[in-house]
């Protein structure tokens, strides 16, 4: 009944064509180990939903060299030149979504909500093709829920049941992504006994988490580096 698996089992949990929800903002709260593993698997036609595609050669950025990506859905790709290049060459579709809308669409995916009306992006290019509706004299647009086949998230600690806590702003999109994936895999720095996390402290209850993978990196000087041998 343990949720702990080896990173090598990732291969069996992800299929070609899957939509992956991947946590992280910049390189904070990023499941580096799971991404490293994914980069080796030779999967095809993946859609990745993540705020950004990491940075050049870092985090999700490494997937841009592997040919596994068909599409990226997120709020900010400008800062990764590789993403911009792949898009320019027609190798990568990009769906640009305002950051708040992205977070809310994922939350809805996890909450059984099909869509919601927001003022954000109403009247802009990012509203093209979206249904508009007036509420109290203001224009809102309909945004649809996002669900994933697999969520790859990063937490600081788990207990053996799979309850999760996060390191400061490493929380970002990870919690909502845990609710919105059919299969949810959490990379963690540490696994503690059940009961060590208080009921108040737990951010993501275990019901959302299917598997735990130990982080292959260690944090030194506030930055994750490859564990020494």
């Amino acid at each position, binding site marked *: 009944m343990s949720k702990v698996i080896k990173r090598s089992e990732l291969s069996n949990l992800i299929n070609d064509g899957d939509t992956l929800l991947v946590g992280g*903002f910049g390189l904070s709260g990023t499941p580096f180990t799971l991404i490293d593993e994914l980069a080796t698997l030779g999967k095809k036609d993946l859609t990745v939903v993540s705020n950004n595609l990491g940075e050049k050669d870092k985090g999700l950025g490494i997937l841009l060299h592997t040919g596994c990506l068909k599409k990226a859905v997120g709020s900010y790709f400008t800062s990764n030149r590789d993403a911009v290049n792949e898009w320019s060459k027609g190798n990568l579709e990009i769906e640009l979504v305002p*950051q708040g809308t992205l977070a*809310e669409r994922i939350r809805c995916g996890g909450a059984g909500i099909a869509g919601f009306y927001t003022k954000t992006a109403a009247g802009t290019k990012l509203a093209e093709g979206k249904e508009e509706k007036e509420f109290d004299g*203001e224009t809102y647009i309909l945004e649809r829920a996002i669900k994933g086949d697999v969520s790859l998230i990063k937490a600081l600690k788990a207990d053996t049941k799979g309850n999760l806590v996060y390191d400061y702003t490493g*929380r970002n999109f990870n919690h909502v992504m845990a609710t919105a994936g059919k299969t949810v895999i959490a990379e963690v720095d540490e696994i503690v006994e059940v009961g060590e996390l208080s009921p108040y402290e737990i951010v993501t209850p275990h019901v959302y988490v299917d598997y735990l993978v130990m982080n292959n990196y260690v944090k030194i000087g506030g930055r*994750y580096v490859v564990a020494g041998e």
Partner: protein
Amino acid sequence: MSLESRIKIAKRVAQELSDGDTVNLGVGIPTLIPDYLGDKKVELQSENGILGMGPTPDEENVNMDLISASKHPVTLDVGASIFDSSDSFVMIRGGHIDVAVLGVLQIDQYGEIANWAIPGKDILGVGGAMDLVAGAKRIIVASMHQAKDGKPKLVEKLTFPTSGNGRADMLITEHAVFKFTENGAELVEQLSDLSLEELQEITGAPFTYQDSVVNR
């Protein structure tokens, strides 16, 4: 874009903020503002999940999982709280941010903002810009008066893609402070020794003014 001008703008924006305001600062000039608040205590909100963002830590206290929306390491002020991205945008989009200070590419005479995309260029980043434009109670635009190519930022009609239906309340440049109403832009303060005519020349939209605020 001289540092001096940028600091001048940041200082003037700082005057607009009040003790206890919850403020979200965009990238660029707005990030300079905390240095010029004096005794004023504002609550900095960061869209990646902080209320009460503090200054940059010493190198030995850096944690790259405690960063600003600009992805720089930060600290937490006393009384700060941490939340996830969806809750952060409840705060932003639900009208709980007193002031958003944003940069712009263009702004029209009614305060409509273009701050995310340049026509003809790759449009691959929007971040939280549109959420802030839609949700903040008050929007102050902090910007150089002219773009790098010399074109005015304040224009009659946007030629760059709009950031949404939300409007700025105020534009602060190195030369002037404008307020926006339904009737258009009003010059409320000159911040440099440009004559009114010189200011009009480098501004792309008509604006009204009270005689008392104009350089003579």
